[in-house]
């Protein structure tokens, strides 16, 4: 291992932060969703990096489950987005504020 694990971690953190910025700044629901995927991936990277560091399999197993969940999430999430677009004809999540108190 010539590249130290912390490098991977720092990279992961940077990717995560980018995802965060995407969620906070963008209004397009699809882009926000992609930013969330970005964050999930950065976390996956962390898991794999730790799995390598400790030489255990659990990290990789976790990544497997994360992927499964991510797949489901994308399927459900996208169908929700489609449903919203059908009824409100918008992709801007700022227009979706029915829960305003």
């Amino acid at each position: 291992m010539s590249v130290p694990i912390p490098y991977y971690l720092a990279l992961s953190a940077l990717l995560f932060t980018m995802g965060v910025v995407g969620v906070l700044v963008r209004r397009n629901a699809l882009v926000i969703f992609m930013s969330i995927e970005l964050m999930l991936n950065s976390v996956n990277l962390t898991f794999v990096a730790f799995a390598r560091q400790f030489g255990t399999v659990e990290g990789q197993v976790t990544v497997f489950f994360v992927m499964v969940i991510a797949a489901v999430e994308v399927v459900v999430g996208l169908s929700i987005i489609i449903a919203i677009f059908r009824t409100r004809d918008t992709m801007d999540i700022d227009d979706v504020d029915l829960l305003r108190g």
Partner: protein
Amino acid sequence: MPLVLIIAFPLLGWLLNGLLGGYLPRRMVGVVGSAAVGFSFLIALNAVQQPERAEPWVVPLYTWIAAGDFVVRAGLLLDRLSSTMILVVTGVGFLIHVYSIGYMAEDPAAPRYFSYLNLFVASMLLLVLGDSLLVLFVGWELVGLCSYLLIGFWFERDRAASAGRKAFVVNRIGDAGFLLGMILLAVTAGTLDIGRIGERAASIAPPALTAITLLLFIGATGKSAQLPLYTWLPDAMEGPTPVSALIHAATMVTAGVYMIARLHPLFMRAELTQMVVAAVGAATAFFAATIALVQWDLKRVLAYSTISQLGYMFLAMGVAAMPAGMFHLTTHAFFKALLFLAAGSVMHAMHGAIDMRRLGGLGRPLRFTMWSFLIGALALAGVPPFAGFFSKDLILEQAFLRADGGAVLLLWMAGVLTSLVTAVYITRAAIMTFAPPSAHHVAPHEAPPSMWWPMAALAVLSIGGGALGAQSAGRPMVQGLQEFFGLTAHEGAAAPLWLALLTPAVALLGIAVGYFAYRGRRQINLGRVGTFLELEWYLEPLYDRVIAGNAKRVGRVLATTVELRVIDGAVNGIGLAAVRAGASLRRLQTGYVRNYAAAILAGTVLLIGWWLLR
């Protein structure tokens, strides 16, 4: 066991008339009620004459209350003091029951009447015979209850219902004092048993003793209608007249006097209390007598007269002349019951009219009633040889001797003055009622026999009752009680002769004044003095408006302002504050997902920061 039977018979009568009275013939109801008390009288007579009665006769019944160190054993106690009382209660009670048969013959509620009356007799006997102060208190409150029920007997009339309520509440005020006194006694002496109280009286610290006796005396002022708690008794005249005779003249109202006599070991050791008792008694006697001067309602005249006479009894209790007080209690029971029954006979004849301005000229049609009334009146005024003379004279004599020139002499003078006023007002009442000219158009008819023979019996007692305490007759009753109370008669300082002549002279003077002032049924206008007296020395407005009115107002203010606005307002205010807080916090809920996300991020940063800087 006979002692229990004395109470059991009236109780039985109460249950019988109360539960089944509606199914009995009207006449039977009265007979059952009278018989119950009659039997009770016979047993009492028998019990009193038994030889072992020289010693107090105690009948323990059962342990009533036992909690912690406090134990009350209920039992009955017959001694010289209670002997006198049970004879008066059952004897006079019996006569008045019989009288009531005729008096209440027309009333459909007679079963209720007789059951109440029997319950009263039973309660009064319990009061008299109770060997524990707490048992006495049971009787004490129960007679108050009966008084309430009987004053408000014609409850459809608002005045009667209100009078009953007033009687109960005013008595309750006194009883609160009684209750406190009893508790203080139980705490200091450790017992409420009358026998033991006597034994331990000497060991109670004087301040506590004074407090106990004063508190108990508050109770007595309520029950016996003394200043300042006298106001209920005149109103109590709303009840049927035999009730006024039995409860509000002869028996119940004397309970306060009896209680002091019962607890004489306490009261005779409390100098200050004795002074208070004597002063209140003398003041009440004079005060009530003056008010009686201006009353137009015949029964109210008699009511104030009762208050006044009870004042004499308290005066006697205060100057340690307890035998004299008990003697006056007895004779008063006779002649005041007689007066009331005579008044009842007048009402009966006049279809309920009792305002003296609308009577008059009744001497001819109601000859028997008039003579009965006059006998009672002479006894009340204190004219020898009627019973009232001997007892009243004895009280005044003892007060004079006790005073020995001191401050008590003032009380004695009040007593003598009262005697004068008494003679005046009773003369006025007699003239207004019986002397011509008549002020009505009714053809009155004399009472039925069931009503007049009890009057006759009481008239005999009012004439001859003085023998119980007359010097010439050997004072059988007073002598016996003298021993009981452990008193030595003031033999050494025998009353001077002028004193013995003074009281009859004053009485005769009063009668003369009354006769000349009111002859021909003249109505005298006393001007401002009259108003002053009619307003009961301004005590009545004080009570009704200042005290009762303001108390009610306080209740209203508490119920409306304090309860609803302040306390419930605070509660609802808390609720409202929660709602307001929610309303303002609601704005944080913008509905923008990105706001929430930013908030989550900020929270995460803060958490990590806290973890780092920990």
